């Protein structure tokens, strides 16, 4: 848990926009003061989208990466709705207003757990927080394995960054790269032994990942993205039905131990 990390209202400048593949954008942001505040993998920011009555509310976007020197914040955006499409049109030099970091991130293994072998399972744009998580694990001397999936090769993003941090296994539904099928069907589940699973992606994918982890008796954490308004635990719109009742994804998640969720 990382409730102690201070929240901020930040005006950051776009320093680089990269279209990684059609519709997927990597946005690099910098701060005028040079340093971006502390954030934890799995946390998110609420991004203000200006310009249209239809994009009235902020958009919750998970932290893709905070560089080790805290100079750059990366967001990975899949332009699917009005808000994300507007974000995809940003230019270098544009100022983006964010509230964050918000929510609770992934639980990191303590440094004395030597035999830690985490598996990070992501689908589509859901791979975004796993890059930051992979960097944090790597900083702690842990080499993670990534299992990334998409419909086709162009849905697999930032592969070169993941490969620097750990072993990478891939699946695509059309077989254009990696094993054909879903992440839950990859052979790695049978060949390797993992001590922890972290997952982020479409809900049906995460549910199935959590089921496999449960069968293999591996602890599993999932990052949810229910529709939200405030991002701060005030409006109670983004709730997930859990064994503890309705919990806010924004403030009591977005990362949950899957044993708490009514998925299995």
């Amino acid at each position: 848990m990382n409730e102690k990390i201070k929240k901020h209202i930040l005006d950051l400048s776009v320093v680089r926009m990269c279209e990684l593949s059609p519709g997927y954008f990597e946005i690099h942001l910098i701060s005028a003061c040079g340093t971006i505040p502390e954030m934890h993998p799995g946390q998110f920011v609420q991004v203000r989208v200006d310009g249209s009555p239809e994009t009235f509310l902020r958009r919750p976007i998970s932290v893709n990466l905070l560089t080790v020197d805290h100079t750059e914040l990366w967001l990975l955006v899949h332009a699917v709705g009005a808000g994300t499409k507007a974000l995809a049109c940003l230019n270098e030099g544009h100022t983006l207003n964010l509230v964050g970091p918000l929510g609770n991130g992934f639980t990191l293994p303590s440094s004395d757990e030597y035999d830690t072998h985490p598996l990070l399972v992501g689908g589509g744009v859901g791979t975004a927080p796993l890059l930051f998580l992979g960097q944090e694990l790597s900083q702690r001397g842990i080499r993670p394995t990534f299992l990334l999936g998409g419909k086709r090769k162009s849905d697999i993003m930032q592969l070169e960054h993941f490969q620097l941090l750990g072993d990478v296994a891939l699946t695509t539904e059309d077989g254009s790269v990696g094993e054909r099928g879903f992440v839950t069907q990859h052979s790695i589940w049978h060949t390797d032994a993992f001590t922890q699973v972290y997952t982020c992606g479409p809900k049906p994918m995460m549910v199935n990942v959590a089921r496999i982890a449960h069968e293999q008796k591996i602890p599993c954490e999932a990052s949810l993205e229910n529709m939200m308004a405030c991002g701060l635990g005030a409006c109670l719109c983004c709730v997930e039905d859990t064994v503890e009742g309705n919990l806010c994804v924004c403030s009591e998640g977005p990362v949950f131990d899957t044993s708490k969720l009514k998925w299995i």
Partner: protein
Amino acid sequence: MSQLTTNIGALTLKNPVMTASGTFGYGIEFEDLVDLTGIGGIIVKGTTLEPRQGNPYPRMAETAHGMLNCVGLQNKGADYFCRNIYPKIKDIDTQFIVNVSGSSPETYAECAAMMAELERIKGIELNISCPNVRQGGMAFGTSCSGASSVVKAVRAVYPNTLIVKLSPNVTDIAEIARAVEAEGADSVSLINTLMGMAIDVERQRPVLSINTGGLSGPAVKPVALRMVWQVFEAVKIPVVGLGGIMNATDAIEFLLAGARAVEIGTANFIDPAVTVKVVKGINDYLDRHGYDRVENIIGLAHKQ
């Protein structure tokens, strides 16, 4: 610097800007982002006698210049508030007002009586206007007799400032305001959300889990302002105005229409620090127009 103090019954606010129930949690969720002591009052989320799970997800839909919600009064109950939340907020230097809801006049009254025991809670806002619950809520707020029955029950057990939050989903809001005034309410706040809905055209189903929800945000502001104007002319008790206030200009419109204080709701989601900016904006406006007290502009638009 003008005098921004305003009074709602026996309750003194250091400035006329409060946060609307259900949009600002218990305040502490926002403490990293805004100076809570710069806010005139914090109206904490709807509290009922017993805990409530609220409605199923999805509870929110974004609409043009606003949003719909059907949260349905999810809260951990009055006892939890008294034991776990009150100790965390009682030393923060602003007025905390608890929004109280119920399913019968008796449960409203019992919850209100528990709040009366809390020294630092000097007022409650009675929610007779929640559009998202089957029992109680708006069912009371849409008829004079229903509204009167709740206010009467609460007034009998609650000695401190009693604000009654009115529903806009009525034919004549002034009539309801007069009915609650007659039962001894100290103030009325308006408006709660307007009933609305959104349909997902791909799924061909309503977006919200219970089909309908309450509309808030700048889309409702002209409606809210009109109702504040009408209620100001209908009652003698102080009016608290809310509905789509996004900035100081919006807030000043409500003050000119007759509100002695305003509540900011949905705007907190867009800018968590909006409240203190509105306070500053009101102050600047008073200075610019040569008024030394905010009281001088309340209801001013009614005068010739």
